[in-house]
């Protein structure tokens, strides 16, 4: 993965270094997506990547394969079966009970071995704590390039993966190529790519590969696992409606107004980064480049200026509504709809008005 380029100038210079792909890499074909499974659950980012991977594979006229790694048994089998419903042409599977918990050593071995044996041209992983842990180890083992946290994936005219990612805190975007090494690896954060449609399909070809380890080979042991309490776990990234507040709210007490509107809408609440830094809100609620990426149907931002680092986390929303006292706030440049108003007064009015509009009673009245 490239660190941030210093300026645009050397970037152009770099483009001139293109060479012919070494002979031994020519056997690398097809697009692969690593299916991330933890404790029997497939992370949705894997299916989002299958959507992106399908497009790349179609453009390159190659196969799309899913790589499913996990313990023997039901969960791993059904992850493989699901992969076909999300567009896989085939599945590579490493199923072994030593893979019950994610551990860097065993998963790196499993994925590296499958790559070396079946040689993909492109390998995509989710930029989650698991995916980033694994991708860094695999790419270094294979001595290939890895572009982290991409926001756009495409193949250019000569078939190279063009991976675009934000740099310098999102102020700029850069497109990165891995020209002379294979596979071309990239990670993408959850919710950056849209969720593809699931189409019921029969289970196709599954290629099993052995792990080839015994427990004594793996140094790291999982002593325990403390699942996040459901109440503590926000579903912010996958919520359909999100209401967020920023510094414009002025005080932590006023943030209540955001929570109240969220409750009436059955929405999740979020915030801009300064509120986390001030300790008003916990970090799992932060939206943006260094927080969560969201893709709701409706996003309401109150008292948020719309800095680029915030913007990159919300651009996938279907409808962005901004409330800001400053008519020139940058958020009005990318929101679909806005109102120049004091959020501290408007939020309670919105909460009341939505409550009236959405309550079952008002509907009953209309129905009768």
């Amino acid at each position, binding site marked *: 993965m490239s660190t941030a380029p210093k300026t645009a100038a050397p970037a152009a210079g770099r483009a001139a270094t293109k060479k012919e792909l070494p002979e031994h890499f020519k056997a690398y074909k097809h697009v692969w997506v690593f299916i991330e499974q933890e404790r029997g659950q497939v992370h949705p980012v894997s299916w989002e990547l299958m959507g992106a991977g399908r497009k790349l594979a179609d453009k390159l006229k190659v196969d799309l394969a899913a790589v499913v790694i996990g313990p023997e048994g039901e969960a791993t089998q059904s992850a493989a079966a699901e992969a076909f419903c999300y567009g896989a042409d085939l599945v590579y599977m490493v199923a072994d009970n030593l893979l019950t918990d994610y551990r860097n050593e065993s998963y790196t071995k499993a994925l590296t071995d499958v790559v070396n044996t079946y040689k993909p041209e492109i390998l995509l992983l989710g930029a989650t704590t698991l995916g980033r842990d694994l991708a860094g180890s695999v790419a270094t083992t294979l001595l290939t390039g890895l572009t982290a946290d991409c926001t756009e994936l495409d193949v250019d005219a000569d078939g190279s993966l063009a991976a675009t990612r934000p740099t310098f805190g999102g102020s*700029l975007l850069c497109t990165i190529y891995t020209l002379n090494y294979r596979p071309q690896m990239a990670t993408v954060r959850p919710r950056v790519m849209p969720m593809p449609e699931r189409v019921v399909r029969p289970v196709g070809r599954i290629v099993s590969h052995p792990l080839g380890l015994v427990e004594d080979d793996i140094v790291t042991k999982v002593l325990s696992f403390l699942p996040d309490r459901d109440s503590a776990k926000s579903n912010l990234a996958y919520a359909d409606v999100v209401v967020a507040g920023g510094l414009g709210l002025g005080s932590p007490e006023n943030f209540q107004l955001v929570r109240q509107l969220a409750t009436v809408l*059955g929405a999740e609440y979020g915030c801009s980064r300064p509120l986390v830094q001030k300790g008003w809100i916990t970090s799992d609620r932060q939206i943006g480049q260094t927080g969560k990426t969201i893709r709701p149907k409706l996003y309401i931002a109150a008292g948020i200026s719309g800095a680029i680092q915030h913007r990159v986390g919300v651009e996938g929303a279907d409808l962005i509504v901004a409330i800001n006292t400053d008519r020139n706030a940058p958020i009005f440049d990318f929101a679909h709809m806005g109102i120049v108003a004091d959020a501290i007064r408007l939020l309670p009015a919105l909460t009341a008005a939505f409550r009236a509009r959405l309550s079952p009673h008002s509907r009953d009245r209309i129905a009768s």
Partner: protein
Amino acid sequence: MHIVVCIKQVPDSAQIRVHPVTNTIMRQGVPTIINPYDLFALEAALELRDQFGGEVTVLTMGPPSAEDSLRKALTFGADRAVLLTDRFFAGADTLATTYALATAIRKISTEFGAPDLVFTGKQTIDGDTAQVGPGIAKRLGLLQLTYVAKISALDLQARTIDAERRSEGGVQLLRTRLPCLVTMLEATNQIRRGAMADALRAARAPIVKWSAQDAGVEDISKCGLRGSPTIVKRVFAPAARSEKAVLIESGEQPAEALIDAIFKRQPALETELAALARGY
């Protein structure tokens, strides 16, 4: 005990501006800071040293001016600072960066004693990849613990470390063997202010400066731009949306006006919201 902490000097990106015409970063006058996540790593290392004894070496690869960050780290209480600087390192991507840093850590090992632990931050705010830590671990054959929120136990006799690692659905408590590499999450351990004695020492302390050759780099083609499998083809500013937001006039009943506008634009939302709201 010997701990090596990798820190990076980064531009304070809160203050970065992009030139509107040329799309280049305007670095002039942008102050540099120690990558914020690396300070959590440094503090964690200093706490372990205070508890178990030993030394903390800070290491950075960067331009000569990165010396400032190392001095800062010394004022916080680091015992030794190593600056890896050479024009051959310029333009490195993560693979080339990990080659250089791993080489330097080997050299540190022979010069100052083998590290029991290597710390890095979770990620940088300029490169922002979170890959350098795992890359160094792989190159040095170290075990790795990433996204560590807390080191819960260290046993120097048994050579084991227990740590809480953030995973997607919860926290894994892991035990692994030393030496190992830890990438630290942002935590509550704010960097200490540093003692007066350390500040005085830091001002005069010698900084170990190594070129690629000094550090023992054997293959210069694995460094910098030449050693980077990825190339940056294009740098550009995010596209502006063609239309600006439709501004709702905040008349008598701004809330109602806004809701009407929302439902007018996305009629399906009204039933969806009603269904969501009923869930409460």
